[in-house]
């Protein structure tokens, strides 16, 4: 062991400190980079050498640059990201649909139906009075128009959600391919390219946000990505997701061996949330259809039992001709009655006295009879629907808030493992700066010793 060995050892110290300073600098630079995992330098003694009976150290070597990462936490985070996005997306759509049933600040369906019965009640003052009949016609027409516009708006919302699903699926398929490409690069780097691994984590997390996925790591460093039990990415191969829309329903498929396998039940993330919301809106529309059918039957049957001013039996009060995907879309108040209010069949007798309001009286009593499904009144049926809409939105909001708490905890956990602490990095910088300076001094002392020795032999 001599001066040259000391010089070599000091040089290894300079190199190690330099690499560690680089890592700390990189960590500080990426402190705010989403998905970045902090790096730390792993140092170890260089292999010692034996001189006689003595072992002498040869300095330090950089064994590797580690990426702070916990696969368990990452998988939990990916799952939670999908759950949160699913709840948030469902709530977002239901929040919009809820607006059409809002009856708190403006008159909604239950209040407007109440308006129809109120106008009928008022008409008992004088069943033949034109202004009172006009009020009945106006309230009935306004109510029917509101029902149909509500149904049309919900169907439009479904269409918009399905358009958005198409856009998401396009991105999803691109992302699946990106992950497969990153797998290829990671395999080539033998799993040592930390930046590639971070990028792949970001892509998997984004995919989870869109459709809700799980993943596990293979020995070759690649990540296998799963949707439920179906593989989306296997090594360097990525599969394609597709969607088929019908009225108010969307079905999802993954392409496997030139065939399509249904994965609708496995879909999570934002797309899964949209799909759930779509189903719920379809349920509201079905309920609205049933309501329209039952209300039409109730009004039309009773009106047909009465007689108009000319002694003719009453025409249909409400009509729903169909034509759209839902009956409620075509719900209208009979135009004939709107044009000629003498056709109102309020009388119970064909002689049609001006004050004969016996059939009108029975029509008013329909307000409280249990002719609707579940032995409800018409208003009760609408209030049930409104409660269902409100409860669904409230439940989705609660779920969003709960998932946000879980996601936040997991993000905190990931940060505690992989995140950059600027105070910690500042301490590291001080430590490695000191190491670098010390190694440099050793190098200078060695140089001076070498010069002294050289001067002695000159």
């Amino acid at each position, binding site marked *: 062991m001599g001066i040259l060995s000391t010089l070599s050892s000091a040089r290894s110290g300079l190199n190690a400190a330099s690499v560690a300073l680089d890592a700390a600098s990189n960590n500080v630079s990426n402190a*705010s980079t989403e998905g970045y995992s902090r790096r730390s330098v792993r140092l170890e003694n260089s292999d010692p050498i034996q001189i006689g009976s003595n072992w002498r150290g040869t300095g330090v070597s950089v064994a590797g640059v580690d990426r702070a990462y916990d696969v368990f936490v990452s998988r939990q985070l990916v799952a939670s990201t999908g759950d949160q996005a699913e709840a948030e997306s469902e709530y977002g759509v239901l929040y919009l649909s809820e607006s059409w049933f*809002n009856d708190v*600040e403006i008159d909604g369906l239950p209040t407007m139906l109440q308006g129809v019965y109120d106008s009928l009640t008022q008409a008992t003052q004088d*069943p033949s009075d034109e202004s009172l009949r006009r009020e009945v016609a106006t309230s009935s027409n306004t109510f029917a128009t509101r029902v149909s516009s509500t149904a049309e708006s919900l169907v439009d919302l479904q269409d918009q959600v399905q358009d958005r699903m198409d856009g998401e699926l396009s991105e999803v398929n691109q992302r699946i391919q990106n992950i497969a490409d990153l797998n290829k690069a990671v395999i080539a780097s033998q799993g040592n390219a930390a930046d590639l691994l971070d990028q792949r984590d970001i892509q998997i997390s984004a995919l989870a946000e869109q459709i809700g996925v799980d993943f596990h790591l293979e020995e070759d460093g690649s990540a296998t990505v799963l949707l439920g039990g179906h593989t989306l990415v296997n090594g360097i191969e990525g599969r394609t997701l597709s969607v088929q829309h019908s009225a108010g329903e969307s079905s999802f498929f993954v392409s496997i061996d030139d065939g399509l396998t249904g994965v609708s039940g496995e879909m999570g993330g934002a797309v899964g949330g949209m799909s759930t919301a779509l189903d719920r809106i379809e349920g509201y529309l079905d309920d609205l259809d049933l309501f329209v059918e039952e209300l039409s039957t109730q009004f039309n049957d009773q009106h047909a039992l009465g007689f108009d001013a000319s002694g003719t039996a009453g025409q249909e009060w409400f009509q729903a001709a169909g034509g759209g995907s839902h009956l409620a879309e075509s719900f209208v108040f009979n135009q004939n009655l709107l044009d000629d209010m003498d056709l109102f069949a309020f009388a119970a007798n064909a002689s049609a006295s001006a004050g004969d309001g016996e059939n009108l*009286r029975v029509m008013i009593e329909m307000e409280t009879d249990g002719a609707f499904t579940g032995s409800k009144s018409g208003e009760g049926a609408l209030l*049930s629907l*409104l*409660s269902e809409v409100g409860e669904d939105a409230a439940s989705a909001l609660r779920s969003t808030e709960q998932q946000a708490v879980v996601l936040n905890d997991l993000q905190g956990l990931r940060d*505690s493992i992989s995140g950059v*602490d600027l105070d910690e990095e500042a301490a590291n910088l001080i430590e490695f700066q000191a190491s670098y300076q010390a190694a440099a001094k050793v190098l200078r002392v060695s140089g001076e010793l070498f010069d002294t020795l050289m001067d002695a032999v000159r």
Partner: protein
Amino acid sequence: MNIYRTTQGSMSRLLTNTASRLNSEIRRAETQAITGLKLSRPSDGPADVASALKLRGLIEDQAEYDSNVTRALSFHSRADDALSQASEIFKRAKEIAVAGASETYDATSRAAMAVEVASLVENLSAVANSRMGERYLFAGNDYDEPAFDAAFAYQGSTDTPETQIAVTTWTRTGMDGSEVFQGSVDAFSVLQDLETALLANDPATVSAGISDLDAAFNHLTSWRQRVGNEENITLDAEETAGNISTILKDEFNNLVAIDEAETYTRLSELQQSYTAAMTVGSASVSGRLFDLI
């Protein structure tokens, strides 16, 4: 894994989440303060919103009943006036009959009395065809035509119009004139018989007809009482509707309206919390050790 390690990223996320949550709560409190409503969407409280809407429907029902009550009371008042006039006609007719039955008067006097009775008949006819607006009060459901023709034949309907003044209460807004004026006693015939007897200078027949005049008077009085009873029922319904409406409005407000003091206090607390969280949070996010290097 080290769950105690805190990074600037996690502090920043905590700050962002806290700001988002507080902003959301501030926005909700501000909306409540501006609208005066604690429920603005069905999801704010599905059960409460359904209850509130049910209450609002019932309040509107009461308003409709109130409108019908006003109309019914107008009818009752007008019908009472008419029946009161009819009773006065028979009071006067009886005075004439008592005088006409007396031997004190001669044929000339009775002829003069007959002229007055003829005018009473005309008055009764006018009363029986009384109107409220365009509606004939005593024509039943056929209220758009006069109840009686010139020969006092009933032209109206024996069915009567009714209007709803409470959930299960209906009241008459028209009367069957044949029952009122030609029921157990034909009021027109009684007066016409008196006129005939006076013209015939027949005090005995005039005297015999006094009991018919009493019967007609009593019959009309009993109808007046019926109208009075219906008026009382209607007034009672009006009072009940007013009380129910007050209770319903209180319950509705309890469900929907904000407590202003509570809302403003909450808003102030939230704004203070937001300021405090941002001040503390922004200091925590920066790496402090770097400042010392």
